[in-house]
């Protein structure tokens, strides 16, 4: 599947338009202040209106864009399922969710190793030396960071709720 620059701009314009509507709608929940002429609702609404106008311009100008221009600069891109990207997003979310439960060191070791595996080219999986370096870095970096923050800067990184309870 190929997603052209034109389509991307149309989607982006619509997203911005919806976001502008959302910002304008939510502004009704802001209590109206009478301490100054403009009040606390004015700026968010003003921004939403400008955003709406500009997103409209982006959408309309993209629709009017000549078809021949789309692929001229090679800007059209394949939009298939990218497993590396999906796994990276998943790893980031899991890192956030687990760091508070298992603590910084353990979670970071697991995250670093997994993230390096996601980014490494497949042919490197069989390279024992590279895998050993990856593993060593995955263990050493979090331990060193934790040591520096705990012992030198006296700042405690998340220890993990699980261990706190134990």
């Amino acid at each position: 599947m190929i997603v052209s620059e034109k389509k991307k701009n149309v989607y982006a314009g619509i997203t911005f338009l919806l976001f502008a509507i959302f910002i304008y709608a939510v502004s009704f929940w802001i209590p109206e202040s009478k301490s100054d002429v403009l009040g606390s609702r004015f700026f968010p609404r003003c921004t939403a209106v400008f955003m709406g106008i500009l997103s409209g311009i982006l959408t309309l100008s993209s629709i009017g864009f000549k078809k021949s221009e789309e692929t001229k600069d090679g800007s059209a891109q394949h939009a298939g399922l990218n497993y590396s990207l999906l796994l990276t997003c998943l790893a980031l979310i899991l890192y956030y969710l687990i760091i508070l439960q298992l603590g910084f060191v353990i979670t970071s070791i697991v995250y670093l190793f997994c993230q390096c595996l996601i980014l490494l080219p497949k042919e490197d999986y069989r390279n024992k030396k590279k895998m050993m370096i990856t593993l060593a870095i995955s263990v050493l970096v979090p331990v060193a960071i934790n040591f520096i923050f705990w012992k030198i800067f006296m700042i405690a990184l998340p220890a993990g709720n699980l261990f706190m309870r134990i």
Partner: protein
Amino acid sequence: MELLHGFQTIFAFDTLFLIVAGVVGGLIIGALPGLSAFTALAIMLPFTFGMEAVNGISFLMAVYVGGCSGGLISAILLGIPGTPSSIATCFDGYPLAKKGEAKKALGAAILFSFIGGLIGAVVLSFAGPHIAKVALRFNSYDYFAIILFSLTTVSALSEGSIVKGLLSCLLGITFGFVGTDSLSSYYRYTFGINKLANGFNLVPVLIGLFAVSQIMLTAREKAASAKVVGISDIKQKEVKGFGFSFKEFLSYLKTAIPSSIIGLLIGILPGLGGNVSNLLAYSYAKKTSKHPEDFGTGVVEGVVASETANNATVGGALIILLTLGIPGDNATSMIMAGFQLHDVTPGPLLFKTSGVLVYAILAAFIVANVVFFLVEYYGLSLFVKMLSIPSTLLLPIVIVCCFVGSYCANNNSLDILIMVLFGFLGYMLKRNKFPLAPLVVGFILAPSLETYLRRSLMKTEGSFLPVMQSPIAAVFLILTVFAVGYTVYGEIKKTQGQVRGN
């Protein structure tokens, strides 16, 4: 005199050690393709939490100087700009390396980076306090007009279309609304989450937008950025010193002086930075050269122009950051976050309230330039070896440092989530070619813009006329209109050209 006191403050073992460490760290990260001075600052920021303000900010200054200068190594030896501010260095630096004159190119780049940085530092040290004195006389109308001008130029002059730049800026302004309204004290867009009462913290927002989104882009391209094309097979000429004579040095100064002025001016203008100044100085050098046709084939003047300009830009960017509290680019936004971490507010009052700290920072900036020059000159071979570290290994480490940085900013786990979410947003915006600098500057400046306008209208009882009658405000409002008009004109011309081309 105050500057001498500044030197006295930083001439302590721990401060000097941190400056050297910051420069070396910045150089290494800046030299790696794909990682910029901003990334260097994002990695190093968490390490300043436990430091005193002087040490922490001096360290960040050193990282900034190192990060901006590191890009020249990979630009010349690999033909890949380590940072966007070294793009033009590739144009002639890499061809020189391919001709076996890598050492001459590196020598010129290092020496003129140092000269550019020093010119920026000197101008910053002497002009900074005067600009701050003038800025103290500004009233709320003037600040409103200056901030509006900054937001417009950042949006209009950033890469890509003006519509996307403005949308990005408006998005940043919207995020700036989250939290407590400074004049009415009402909550806005907090959706019942009390932890958002103070709004989004700058550190996780910045780290998410730039660093987290970068690892996602790398994942998408699956290690494509780790590919390194070296010049190891080419026999390099042995040279003494910097690789050129004193006579040649004097001739290069003709290019270096205007380039440093271009760099300084571009640095002062918000939103442009080294990314633009190196290209502009290069094109100026090419236009004014007697042999413009030789540019791109390996001309030392091309390297001189690019490197002098991008280092002078650092001084220019720091002038507006310290005196007006306006971050000119992504890296200075990160330094601003560093200031906030140490409870220091950049702006005209900074020179009055924290004079000792400001002059210590200026002294640290000058020392960092000297350290970068010595380290880069003597440690060049080591940095060349560092270029072989693949980004597949380095970026995950950057992310771990970012998690630490976001968490330590407030010891708040919500900040980590904010960082991840802004990472996703940054990725989506980058993929759709929306510039991120306007978003960041919009986010930082939105609260001030709103407060100053509302205060101005409170003073004038709702009338805009007194705002226009203030000379400084009037000049900046006219400049804003001019900037928008000029950019729209450029866009129309570009579109017409495209249509004719078809």
